[in-house]
């Protein structure tokens, strides 16, 4: 990662094949089609706050280059009872981060004798990403509900930024739906409106982004708990197909 000449987010994803530390020799000996690409959750992830909780959603494709390694991935990873993280970027890196943060939060909630705040979870994720910013390729969203501030969505993108946003997108597929968000998101939407917004957004991204696909996994998190909904391929909302 060249600090003086930083890449844009998309360009970094394309540079994935150059970042592999292993199989350097492969490049010279084996034709490109047969070389192993790092496994990435080239992805679409969406999270939105509503009054009383958050709604998060993701596609279900994990790809290794052009090979779809897993077509029904669960990118909604639970950190605590009421806090989830959405993973995009390198599958290995984000899984490692989620595991470490789950442990940290588990330990903290035992010490404090109460569930951790969403902000604390987001900070733990951000600290890891920032500390290993030159090695990791992880763009994560931390979203959940806590007693103090209700539903919250925090964005923790590549370099180690932490910012709370009422709605945010992530992953390679998100580039295709920022316009959809700008046009269709309004503050103070109801739970059902937010659900439709998230589902439609993921569907639109899936239809345009090669690295996103499969089904849509959605979770609704509020004070009463977590409701998980898997919307299978056929049930995704219809989008005009040329």
């Amino acid at each position: 990662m060249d600090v003086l000449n930083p890449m844009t987010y998309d360009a970094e994803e394309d540079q994935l094949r150059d970042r592999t530390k292993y199989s350097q020799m492969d490049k010279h000996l084996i034709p490109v089609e047969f070389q192993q690409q790092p496994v990435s959750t080239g992805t679409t992830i969406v999270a939105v706050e509503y009054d009383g909780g958050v709604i998060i959603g993701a596609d279900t494709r994990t790809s290794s280059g052009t090979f779809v390694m897993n077509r029904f991935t669960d990118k909604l990873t639970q950190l605590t009872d009421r806090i989830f993280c959405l993973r995009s970027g390198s599958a290995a890196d984000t899984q490692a981060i989620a595991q470490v943060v789950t442990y940290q939060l588990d330990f903290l909630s035992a010490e404090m004798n109460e569930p951790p705040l969403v902000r604390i979870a987001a900070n733990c994720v951000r600290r890891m990403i920032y500390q290993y910013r030159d090695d990791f390729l992880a763009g994560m969203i931390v979203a959940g509900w806590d007693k103090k501030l209700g539903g919250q969505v925090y964005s923790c993108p590549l370099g180690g930024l932490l910012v709370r946003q009422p709605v945010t997108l992530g992953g390679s597929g998100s580039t295709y739906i920022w316009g959809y968000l700008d046009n269709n998101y309004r503050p103070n939407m109801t739970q059902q409106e937010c659900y439709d917004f998230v589902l439609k957004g993921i569907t639109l991204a899936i239809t345009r982004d090669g690295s996103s696909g499969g089904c849509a996994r959605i979770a609704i998190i509020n004070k009463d708990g977590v409701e998980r909904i898997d919307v299978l391929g056929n049930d995704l909302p219809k989008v005009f197909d040329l």
Partner: protein
Amino acid sequence: MSSIGSGYDLSASQFSPDGRVFQVEYANKAVEASGTVVALRCKDGIAFAVEKIITSRLYESGSNKRIHNVDKHIGMAVAGLLADARQLLTVARDEAKQYKYDYGVSIPVKYLADRLAMYMHAYTLYGFVRPFGCFILLAAYESDGPQLYGVEPSGVTYAYHGIAVGKAQQTAKTEIEKLKLSELKLEDGINEAAKIIYQVHDEVKDRMFELELSWVGQVNDGKHERVPTQIFAKAESFAKASLEEADDDDDEM
């Protein structure tokens, strides 16, 4: 109350035959010899009042304060050996700083009290160190209301509605028990705390003393600080007036 350890009191790593650690009890004696601290948990905040005894007219007023800040929202008042307290203050500030770095939010006072208690307890386990000779009071106004914690030299910590530590702790405790703390507002609590300090102050043994007052509550948005000058003046005059009243009552009898 005081019994001589006779042989089992030389180090903190020894129990006495009746199961006491005398070094820790002696540390409490150091606390009891210091100027009184009164803390009141009122309905909407916490008031600290400290009787800072001045041993010489040559000292600059305001030196050697006994009320400090650990992070913006937590106040610490100390009774006992001030030098020991200074180190604990540094430890507490370090804990608060590390928590903020790791978790991004301000440290809850309950958690800080637990960490400080663990630290103080560690010094009661070994023969090559001595326990801390101070009683630490921690106060904060958090989202679930005012919280007041006290940490003893032995390392136990309790949450309090009201507490007095130091020379006149017994008399002060009796005074505190007369108050209805759950209905007391912070502005009145400050006056009451100052009054108690003036009442229990021993004019014969310690001629000069400085009153230190601080508060944290809804009134200053949870930011612990010394009381503003006018409030301080009002509290002091309230305290002095009630002293005179008590004198008058005595005369009438």
